[in-house]
């Protein structure tokens, strides 16, 4: 059930209205979208409710947003990153 699309590193991702960016990425089989500063380890969703900041992502050139809180909007451009 997909209502619109966003892109992740250029790849189209289907979204059901009301889903967060994090949920849409997980539903598309993407488990991580960030690598850590120190050990270069992959990170994705952990707490799911805005507490842990593991799921930081860049949305429409705005870095450091929590993917678990941002509700996806049509055409959002999501980029993975390092933080």
């Amino acid at each position, binding site marked *: 059930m997909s209502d619109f699309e966003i892109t992740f590193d250029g790849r189209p991702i289907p979204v059901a209205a009301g889903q967060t960016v994090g949920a849409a990425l*997980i539903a598309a089989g993407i*488990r991580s979208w960030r690598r850590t500063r*120190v050990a270069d380890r*992959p990170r*994705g969703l952990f707490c*799911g409710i805005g*507490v842990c*900041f593991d799921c930081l992502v860049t949305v429409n050139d705005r870095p450091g947003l929590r993917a*678990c809180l941002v*509700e996806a909007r049509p055409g959002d451009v999501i980029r993975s990153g390092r933080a």
Partner: protein
Amino acid sequence: MRDEPAAADVAADIAVIGAGPAGLAAAVTAAAAGRDVALVDAAPRPGGQFYRHRAVSSEEEDRRGGRGWETFVRLREGLAAVRYLRGHRVWHIEPGFVVHALAGDGAERGEGGNGDEAAEGGERGGRAVEIRARALILAPGAHDRVLPFPGWDLPGVLTAGAAQALAKGNGVAPGARTVVAGTGPFLLPVAAALATAGSTVAGIFEANRPFGFGAALARHPARLAEAAGYAAALARARIPYLMGRAVVAAHGDDAVTAVTVARLDAGWRPVAGTERLVECDTVAVGHGFAPQLELPLQLGCATRVTAEGDLVVEVDAAQRTSVPGVYAAGEITGIGGAQLALVEGELAALSVLAAGGASAGEMSSAAMSAAAMSAAARAVSGKAVSGKGVAWLLARRRRLRAFAAALGAAYAVRPGWPAWLRDDTVVCRCEEVPYERLVAAVALGATDPRTVKLLSRAGMGWCQGRVCGHATAALTARATGRALAASDLRGLVQRPIAQPIRLGDLAHAPETREKEPP
């Protein structure tokens, strides 16, 4: 409901922080008495974690009901009389009281289906908003507590609450094959939600052996029926439930591919030779909940440590904190679940109403007047949440707190868990601090968690120790050879800013910043 345009300044009689069960009950009850109530909440929709629902599915939820959904529908209707500030993330509260929040741009955009509006508490950027109120009811709730284990930082390992938020709030299964682990009755609805969302649940591994809990459950027919319902759902989905077992390591390269499950002794030390590998792509793990204490601690509210070792806000019989004019309800007064939160929220509102025109200072010294609260209850009867009298509410609170205490004792974190850590196990996820660096900090002479934090950087990252705080406190106490104390827990939950915020957003604050000197 009356949606406030995110005005620069809002003035109200009562500000309620948090729109979960406790905050909703408090706001709706106080508004039923004709008081001007501002309900401030970060989420785009009311309900908190318990009544979490999808933007597009509340009509469906309204039909299906269950888990007290009827109560939520009644509360949601009661919001018509409340100034409901959705998408407002509170980051600081000044005495007096001035609530500082960041309002998401969606808070006034009017998007989304079903009359709901997307409002993300400023996650995409927001504006600073001040809400002034004469009384405060704090109901910020709790978040999952997760103890570290080797590999818990791998993608695919997430909190039980996150798994539930994905399944319930987004209709997404976090993976194809999930292991559910940790401790507490919350693991059961999480496993059930995962199965409903389409994930195979390889097993629920409950670290405790809560046999004694059956007696407490038998005295609470509603909870017993709920437990029986989950047991039936788990049986239907063929989900094994194993007690006295824990995930002691997660394996994988760039994501989890398997976990090691071991039997634990009563003190949670893994029993050698009992390890077995369970393949999975997802681990949902939770070891109880941590109350969100930033706001009460900012305000100077006294705290206490429960029998289970949780740091909570101290309240009196009238839900008053030690700070005049500040009331608390729900999980921050002790983890007790949604039913208790509803009762505490309603009582907190009646308590504020009973205080009437009395100034905060007068109220602090006077004993709470049961007669005044009863009068307030009569004034709102039929419009309030339960529609019941104060005596009924107090009796129900006593009963639910006794149940919560039994639950807490049966599902407490036991002290032996550090035995499953390795030297290189990440304890602080934000700053990537391994266990050995905490031990090294103690070897350097640190004897309290704050010093350990300064030396090791554990708890100094983005989450400000929310995730690793309990573990850092427990590991510090252990390394210094003493029991975990209240001071250990307090030292790591004090945060001058309750929510990380961007300086750029504050730069757009309203122009009315001048204040009288204190």
